[in-house]
């Protein structure tokens, strides 16, 4: 198969899978899972340094920054103000000016606050960030984010951590059909077939954390997700057959033994 890299904001990635760094049973398991996933980009959260327990290991001891591109996120932010502030702090850590922008609007569903997300996107684009917003699977919001300067749009497949898979496949297809920037399905993937479906719908990539980290064996699941993303992408590029309501024989109709 010819090289088919994912290009985001002028940067190319061989892998179309982006993985998280949370919820793993241990850091060594995370390291192995990252390797098996084939991902080249990992997302990290930004938090206050724990001043009461300095014995905790630093996440950066377990992620080779030469091998993985770090994508800081604004997970946990509920206002545009906090998200913008967090993004600026993340940039100051000094690894990149990219941000996976999250502005949450509801605690139970962790659905984004579209209005605040748009505002934060505009502000961060103005401040020279590469903004990758986590958004609803809403084609109109995705278009507005693109207009605001987002480098990609990252519609959810289902609520974060739910493992429910792609709830509105048609919306993902519509978003991809209209988008002038890459579409990354972010959140909701529970199983490899979910990831494959996202890619078959035309998504340019998939971002997941819990689907791998929360599996009974995260390392094996990471490999399964890599294969699923590759399979789904290949299936999309190959072009599926049309759906038909009745059978079409795939063997010749002539020369059947016993026919007249």
């Amino acid at each position, binding site marked *: 198969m010819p090289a088919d890299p994912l290009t985001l904001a002028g940067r190319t990635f061989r892998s179309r899978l982006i993985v998280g760094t949370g919820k793993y049973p241990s850091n060594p398991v995370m390291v192995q899972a990252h390797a098996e996933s084939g991902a080249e980009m990992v997302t990290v959260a930004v*938090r206050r340094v724990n001043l009461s327990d300095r014995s905790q290991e*630093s996440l950066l001891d377990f992620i080779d920054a030469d091998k993985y591109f770090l994508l800081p996120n604004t997970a946990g932010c509920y206002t545009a103000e906090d998200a913008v502030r967090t993004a600026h702090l993340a940039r100051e850590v000094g690894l990149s000016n990219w941000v996976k922008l999250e502005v949450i609007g509801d605690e139970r569903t962790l659905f984004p606050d579209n209005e605040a997300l748009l505002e934060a996107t505009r502000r961060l684009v103005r401040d020279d960030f590469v903004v990758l917003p986590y958004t609803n699977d809403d084609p109109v919001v995705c278009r507005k984010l693109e207009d605001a300067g987002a480098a990609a749009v990252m519609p959810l497949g289902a609520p974060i951590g739910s493992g429910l898979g792609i709830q509105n496949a048609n919306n993902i297809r519509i978003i991809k059909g209209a988008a002038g920037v890459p579409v990354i399905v972010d959140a909701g993937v529970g199983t490899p077939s979910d990831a494959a479906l996202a890619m078959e719908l035309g998504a340019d990539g998939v971002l997941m954390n819990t689907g791998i980290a929360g599996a009974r064996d995260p390392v094996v699941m990471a490999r399964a997700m890599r294969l699923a993303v590759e399979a789904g992408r290949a299936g999309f590029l190959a072009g599926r057959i049309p759906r038909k309501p009745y059978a079409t024989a795939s063997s010749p109709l002539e020369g059947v033994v016993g026919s007249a």
Partner: protein
Amino acid sequence: MGRGREYAFSRLRIMLNGDPYEIAAPLTVGQLLARLEIDSRRVAVEHNLAIVKRAAYDTVVVSDGDQVEVVNFVGGGAHAG
């Protein structure tokens, strides 16, 4: 952490990562990080809501009533917390 216990008579109090923290005298961001035993290459610092550039760690001074945030990267994909 001592939380500045050795400076029991100090009157300088800052808010550090949301908690009160006492210092004996104004000090630079670099000095504060050193005192906290924090590897400054892996963190970012905000002083009174303004980002402190790494190059300014030895010039920005933290004093009474100031608000300081020191953050780093932790594991998370989405809504880690």
